[in-house]
């Protein structure tokens, strides 16, 4: 067990805070493959995990890393991997396996510019849709988007907790700026952190049905070696865990996988609202772009332009209600993102046509600045009047 820690101010990067968060949340297994801008997470856990009896392994590629993470989780350890664009693409098949077989695990994706090798050290937010739809078939998705170093810590803990509670892969969707940025942070003391552990079955192995859902639609999960002798397969299975080959069982299983997240959704979907109540124009921005947006709101208000901010903290489930709540009061919304328009699709959906939704997009590997946002807001103001 790690030594309990007190509150202490530190200078950390987002990636380093993610390492601390993982340890605090009880992660004891990491498998990964180096890739900028996520590598510091693997490096940090290679140092920290063995100190507390945890395991670190550098695998031969990202596909193997994802497989090892699922195997380790089944053997009873909280497990995590970290990667970036090209590696995130490689992990997709096994992420789907984890979703279907309900194996808790966390995948950190520190987004970089793509597609392909793209611009390896440049920021982007181009994986929002991949985080939702990267693997084939209908499946649940949870993805969290930190905007600060402290939040990288908090959301790593939350990602682990959600994956354990709901038995589902959870994605921590950082961007390069948050991953590499250093900030002075005070991390919570050990006793201030809530840690959630997967529920284990209580019935004896004779009567155990490995995929019989509990009251929260989540089946309790033993570890390999606990004596339950259960079967795990990526084929559609019924409550026994064995493949049935029946569409009827697929219908029940896949719908339950989605329902267990939906049922919990009101409390998973999160957004931060900043001066959004009385704003004429609401900026919607996540991750590092939300930092620029916040600065833009302050500056614009000083100039008499009433901007506000909605910052989705969860990409998935998307916090549609927060968008909805400002769609009736604002005159326009600007969705600022470092891609050519991914989050905007969800914003438009949530706004239901009640307010014009305008994109502000950069893919020149530069940050969206507060000036970019103010300039667009001024333009929009002219047009919506």
């Amino acid at each position: 067990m790690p030594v309990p820690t007190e509150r202490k101010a530190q200078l950390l990067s987002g990636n380093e805070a993610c390492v601390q968060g993982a340890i605090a949340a009880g992660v004891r297994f990491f498998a990964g493959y180096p890739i900028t801008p996520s590598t510091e997470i693997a490096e940090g856990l290679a140092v920290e995990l063995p100190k507390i009896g945890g395991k670190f392994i550098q695998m031969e590629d990202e596909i193997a890393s994802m497989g090892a993470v699922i195997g380790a989780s089944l053997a009873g350890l909280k497990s995590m991997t970290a990667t970036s664009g090209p590696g995130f693409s490689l992990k997709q098949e096994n992420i789907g396996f984890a979703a279907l077989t309900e194996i808790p695990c966390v995948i950190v994706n520190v987004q970089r510019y793509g597609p392909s090798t793209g611009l390896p050290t440049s920021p982007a937010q181009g994986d929002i849709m991949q985080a939702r739809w990267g693997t084939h078939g209908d499946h649940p998705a949870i993805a969290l988007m930190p905007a600060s170093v402290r939040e990288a810590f908090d959301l790593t803990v939350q990602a682990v907790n959600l994956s354990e509670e709901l038995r589902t892969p959870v994605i921590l969707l950082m961007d390069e700026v948050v991953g590499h940025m250093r900030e002075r942070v005070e991390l919570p003391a050990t006793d201030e952190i809530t840690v959630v552990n997967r529920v284990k079955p209580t019935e004896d192995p004779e009567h155990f049905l490995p995929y019989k859902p509990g009251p929260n639609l989540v089946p309790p999960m033993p570890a390999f070696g606990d004596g339950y002798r259960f079967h795990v397969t990526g084929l559609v299975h019924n409550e026994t865990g064995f493949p049935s080959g029946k569409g009827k069982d697929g219908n029940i299983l896949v719908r339950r996988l989605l329902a267990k997240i939906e049922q919990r959704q009101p409390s998973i979907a999160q957004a931060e609202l900043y001066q959004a109540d009385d704003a004429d124009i609401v900026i919607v921005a996540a991750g590092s772009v939300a930092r620029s947006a916040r600065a833009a709101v302050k500056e614009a208000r000083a100039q008499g332009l009433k901007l506000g901010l909605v910052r989705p903290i969860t990409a998935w489930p998307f916090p549609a209600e927060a968008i909805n709540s400002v769609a009736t009061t604002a005159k326009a919304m600007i969705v600022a993102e470092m891609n050519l328009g991914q989050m905007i699709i969800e914003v438009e959906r949530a706004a239901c046509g009640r307010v014009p939704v305008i994109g502000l997009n950069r893919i020149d590997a530069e940050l969206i600045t507060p000036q970019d946002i103010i300039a667009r807001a001024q333009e929009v103001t002219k047009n919506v009047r």
Partner: protein
Amino acid sequence: MSVKELVERYCRTSKLPHIWCPGCGNGIIMGAVMRALDKADIDQDKTVIVSGIGCSSRAPGYMNFDTLHTTHGRALAYATGVKMANPDLNVVVLTGDGDCSAIGGNHLIHAARRNINLTVVVFNNSIYGMTGGQYSPLTPTHSYATTAPYGSIDRNFDLCKLVQAAGGTYVARGTTYHTRQLVDQIVAGLGHNGFSFIEVITQCPMYFGRKNKFPSAVDMLKWQQEHAVPVKAAAKMTSEQLAGKFLIGELYHEEAPEYTAVYEKEVIAKARGEVK
């Protein structure tokens, strides 16, 4: 132990009969694995059987252990995670020739290189069975397959040599004809503390046999009998005599530090400051 006792103890009897075609060798190999596990006196509750995707990879579903049927080619990656997380578990990997040497080839050489304590049994039927008879990296050159209608021009792997070169520390080859030896090879693999690899030559009368002039499973087993040469006998044979034949038996055996033990002894101990 009688077959009945063996099946009742190590099979999930309610999952039988299996999906394999008449004449398929997969049942023979699964039986050999169960006999070996019994002979090795393993703890059934502390044994995990991992597989990839393919006809052969369906075997764990019939076996009464903790079982993990993963994605195509990735069984060794999953198994590595299981073993690292809990080295007290016996981890056995059942895989097909395509599963482990094509899509999973990279995982195979790296698991061997680490010398992690896994026992791998490859069901080598020289073909992709589950998808209906396409050629695999182990399909002998000039053989026919649905995707090699004019005969395969690919050169096939010698998987045992590959694994040995990659760092595997126990390497053996058996067949579904020489079943008693096969059980002993798997027992030795289970007992070996390191990466153990047993390639089993088996028959797929349905997809390999039909296309390659083997009218029945019996003809294929006869072919095994005629072409397999025990390692000891081969030592006294000339290269002309050995042409077209293949070796069976223990091909390589070496004691070397095992990965999870070294992680414990070196990495964890150093990280904790217990050793320098």
